[in-house]
């Protein structure tokens, strides 16, 4: 049996195992693990304990970043900082739709940008943003679409973009130069989304909005809100300005320090251990997905399936690759979540690099498209999380319909970034 047939058979077994697991209503992470296990058995590797455990640690550092950053965000929410900022913005800008939309967009972008997870944006800011948008008479499916799309873009926004980090790691490419290629499209597309979907809304009913939002603790102020972010920024700057005298902390400890600052400065007593437990509980499905995606990738490499996908991808006509990015990236995300980055992202970036495109800008373009898959079954974790958070009762398809226009815009912008990545290389300054 030649290499292609052998790897194709293993791939078929993996797909069948995944589909069977999903049909049995098994969670995504366990379905990924089932696919990996079936692949190893079909590939003649038995149950490869070493590879399973080694693969499980592939994204360990990213998991730590994810956990500490989300703890930081959750402590900020519990302390009342998030609602304090939303109420302040509402009071100041309730009569001015444009600045209100801009500030709301920026608030929605921050949690996902820092953690790399759109779900954190939905959980931290989604409810409050939905309250504000609801008082502007925007229907709930539309509100959910606004929050979902911006949450996806927040996950793609710098500094933490897990798709880009995972793909860069798989191609021996430094995760450097991504800041502007990710920031510019994410901010522009997020603003376009809220303005397109929310433009026909009424002005905010301030009284109603303030009544519906939780009260901020009386002692909360801008110093308490901004100091934890300042701590995080100072640690980043110190590591870059004094790299040979400042100890290496790593991003997880930096987020933990920011979380500690949020805890200490909170005007109300926070239940630290309860928030920690809740954070882990909230993140378990996503941590599980990252862990099992690592195992799956390791088994794919072991059995030759990764090579089959890679060689098939890099030998396709380039026009076909460009024209199908809008489909292949979201679908791979819907099936594998972040596992899509090492499986599909790595060969694509190698292909783009070989044909002379700028790999950083091209990968940034792909990273903007990937989160769209989070609304598509079988996983659709973030899409469903958003509709639940907003309290949408309408059919899920109605929410998907409102996502369509921004999704097309995102797909077009992302694809153009890939195609014209060489011309956009000036963005990769830092």
């Amino acid at each position, binding site marked *: 049996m030649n290499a292609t047939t052998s790897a194709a058979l293993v791939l078929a077994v993996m797909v069948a195992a995944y589909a069977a697991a999903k049909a049995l209503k098994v969670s995504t992470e366990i379905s990924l693990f089932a696919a990996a296990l079936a692949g190893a058995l079909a590939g003649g590797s038995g149950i490869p304990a070493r590879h399973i455990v080694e693969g499980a640690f592939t994204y360990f550092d990213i998991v730590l970043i994810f956990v500490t950053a989300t703890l930081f965000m959750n402590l900020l929410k519990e302390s009342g900082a998030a609602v304090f900022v939303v109420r302040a913005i509402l009071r100041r800008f309730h009569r001015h739709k444009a600045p209100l939309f801009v500030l709301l967009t920026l608030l929605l972008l921050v949690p996902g940008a820092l953690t790399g997870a759109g779900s954190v944006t939905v959980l931290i800011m989604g409810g409050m943003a939905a309250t504000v948008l609801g008082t502007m008479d925007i229907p709930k499916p539309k509100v959910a679409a606004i929050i979902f799309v911006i949450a996806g873009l927040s996950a793609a926004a710098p500094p933490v973009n897990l798709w880009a980090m995972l793909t860069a790691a798989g191609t021996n490419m*430094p*995760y*450097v130069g991504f800041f502007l290629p990710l920031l510019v499209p994410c901010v522009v597309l997020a603003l376009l989304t809220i303005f397109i979907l929310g433009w026909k809304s009424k002005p905010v009913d301030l009284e109603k909005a303030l009544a519906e939002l939780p009260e901020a603790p009386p002692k909360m102020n801008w110093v308490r809100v901004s100091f934890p972010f300042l701590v995080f920024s100072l640690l980043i700057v110190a590591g870059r300005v004094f*790299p*040979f005298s400042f100890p290496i*902390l790593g991003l997880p400890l930096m987020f933990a320090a920011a979380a500690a600052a949020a805890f200490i400065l909170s005007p109300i007593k926070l239940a630290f251990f309860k928030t920690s437990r809740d954070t882990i509980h909230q993140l378990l499905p996503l941590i599980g997905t990252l862990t099992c995606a690592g195992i799956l990738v390791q088994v794919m490499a*072991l059995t*030759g399936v990764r090579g089959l996908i890679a060689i098939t991808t*890099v*030998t396709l006509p380039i026009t076909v690759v460009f024209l199908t990015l809008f489909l292949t990236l979201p679908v791979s995300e819907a099936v594998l979540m972040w596992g899509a980055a090492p499986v599909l992202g790595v060969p694509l970036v190698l292909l783009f690099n070989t044909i002379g495109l700028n790999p950083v800008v091209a990968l940034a373009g792909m990273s903007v498209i990937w989160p769209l898959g989070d609304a598509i079954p079988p996983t659709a974790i973030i899409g469903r999380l958003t509709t639940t958070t907003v309290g949408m009762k309408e059919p899920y398809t109605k929410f998907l319909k409102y996502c369509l226009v921004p999704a097309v815009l995102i797909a077009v912008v992302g694809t153009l970034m890939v195609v014209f990545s060489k011309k956009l290389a000036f963005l990769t300054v830092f």
Partner: protein
Amino acid sequence: MTRKAVIAAFGAALAIFAGLSFYRSRHLREPVVPGPSVSRVAHLGDYFGPIKGTVNDVNVYVLEGKEPGGTILLLGGTHPEEPAGRLAAWIFAENAKIAKGRIFVILTANRSASTVTRLGGAYPPDFTIPTAWGGQKFRMGDRWSNPLDQWPDPEVYLHYPTRQELAYVDIRNLNRAFPGRPNGTLTEKTCYAITELVRREKVDIAIDFHEAELQYPVISTIVAHQKGADLAAAASMFISSVEGFAIGVENSPKALRGLSHREIGDATDAISLLLEAPEPFLDATRGRTDRKLLLTGKDDFVVRAGKRGLLFEKIDEKGWPIDIRVGRHTSTVLQILEIWSGDNPAKAVVLSGVPRYTDIVRDGVGAYLKDPKTIDPAKLFYE
């Protein structure tokens, strides 16, 4: 309850079996039979105290001739996932008879990196080179120091002393941390110790053995610091005409920092060279990842990538066997030394006993590995 117990038992079984495998590969002892010219075996820690006792306090095999001459440093295992480099260094340490000059050989420059395999890469933990006496097992290793020895990574890695911004993970890459930093990380300290060795022993030429994926543009070449450009060009010319294979020459870029061919040349009086051989095992398009691929270098998918013009080195169904890759390294070093010795008689390094490319391709690498059972165990060294 039963479900939880079953899952816990499965997890515990995985942890035990995987843990045993990790422990065995981290502590695998690789015997070295010191060759006829090994006068002593020093440690890297002898050149920089803070490395002493760490995982990277590795053996430095000192091969000395009766006549004084030049001094050469051979570095194997800078990236242990490139095994031809370690094996070429091994062959020098076990076989070379030095008539003139000295050769310092480090078999595992980053021992820490040799104790871990690539997460997500599905590398085998070890591989065995067949020999007439049964075979010798080697650790596989990775490109980066083991996170158990150096962790966490910074948000961004700034190279010392240039402050060039590099990928965060490369703070654990020995070939991105030269010339090293005395109060830095384990990897930076290891580089500093090697640079100190070059300075103190007045090394004339430092040669770093590597392998590369075929999708990487710097391949099948000698990367030379400007001080060694003429030497490398002459060696390339001679090799192409007499050794049975072709090798190119690349100038060490001044803008790319931390690499041995740039920094050792800049920081010391030595000429620094880096040798690259092709290793299909490292290609992202590779198929099944196993020991066979590592040793034969045969892979249908990489061949397909080559047919589509996506590679920087040729490959066909014969692959790139380990014997060819190791032979390229030994012959390249021998040619470099012959040219150097001809041009610098006072600093000549003259040796015999080291197989050339054609010898290794004909006999296999295993023919030049010494059987550890044939000598007094007290005289053995371990990597």
